[in-house]
C-alpha cells in the first residue's frame, strides 16, 4: 500500500510541473516542464508496477524513458535553429 501512496504523491509533483507547463513564459520553460513531467511519469510507472505486482508497467516505463529522451532531443534541436 505504501507504493500506491508514494505514486499519488509523485502524481501531485507531476501536477505541479504541469502548472509550469501552462504558465511558462518562454518555450524552453515549457520544454523543461515536459522533461520533468516525463521523469516523474517514469517514477510513477515503476512505483505502480510494484504496487500492483505487474512487471509490464516497468517495461513500459523503460520504453517511455527512451522515447521521451528522443522527443526532448528533437525539440532542443528544433529550438537551436532548425531540424536540418
Amino acid at each position, binding site marked *: 500500500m505504501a507504493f500506491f501512496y*508514494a505514486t499519488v*504523491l509523485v502524481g501531485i509533483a507531476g501536477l505541479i510541473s504541469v502548472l509550469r507547463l501552462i504558465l511558462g513564459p518562454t518555450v524552453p520553460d515549457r520544454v523543461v516542464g515536459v*522533461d520533468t513531467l516525463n521523469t*516523474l511519469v517514469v*517514477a510513477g510507472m*515503476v512505483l505502480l508496477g510494484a504496487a500492483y505486482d505487474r512487471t509490464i508497467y*516497468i517495461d513500459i516505463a523503460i520504453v517511455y524513458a527512451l522515447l521521451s529522451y528522443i522527443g526532448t532531443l528533437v525539440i532542443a534541436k528544433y*529550438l*537551436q*535553429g532548425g531540424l536540418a
Partner: protein
Amino acid sequence: MNYVEALIYVFLGISVTFNLLGSFALIRFPDVYTRLHGATKCTTFGTIFAVFAVITHALYQLHKTGDSKYLQMALHSVVALIALLLTNPTGAHAIAKAAHLSGVKPARAVVDAYEEKLGGGSE
C-alpha cells in the same frame, strides 16, 4: 515491521521528498536555467530512490515466496534505472544549450561565459 520494510519506507520517503522538491523548484526559480538545474537534479535523485525501493521490495518478495516474477521485476527496474541515468542529464544539457542559442538569457546574471565563448558579447 522488520528491517527490510523499514528500509523500503525510508527509500520511498526520500524519493517522494526529492520529487516534490524538484517540482517546487520548477515553480519557484526565476529563469529557465535555474529551473532546469533544480528540477532535473532533484527528480533524477528521487527517481533513483524510487527504483531502489522497488528493487528492495522485489528482492524481499523473491526471498519470501520464491516466485521468479519478482526477479524479473528487479532486473527490469535496473534496466529502467540505467536508461534514466543515461538519458536524463543528456537531455538537460541539450535543453540548456538550445535555450541559450534560441535567445533566452539568464535572469539577473552578471557574467555569461558561454556568450563570451561564442564571440557575440553584447558589451
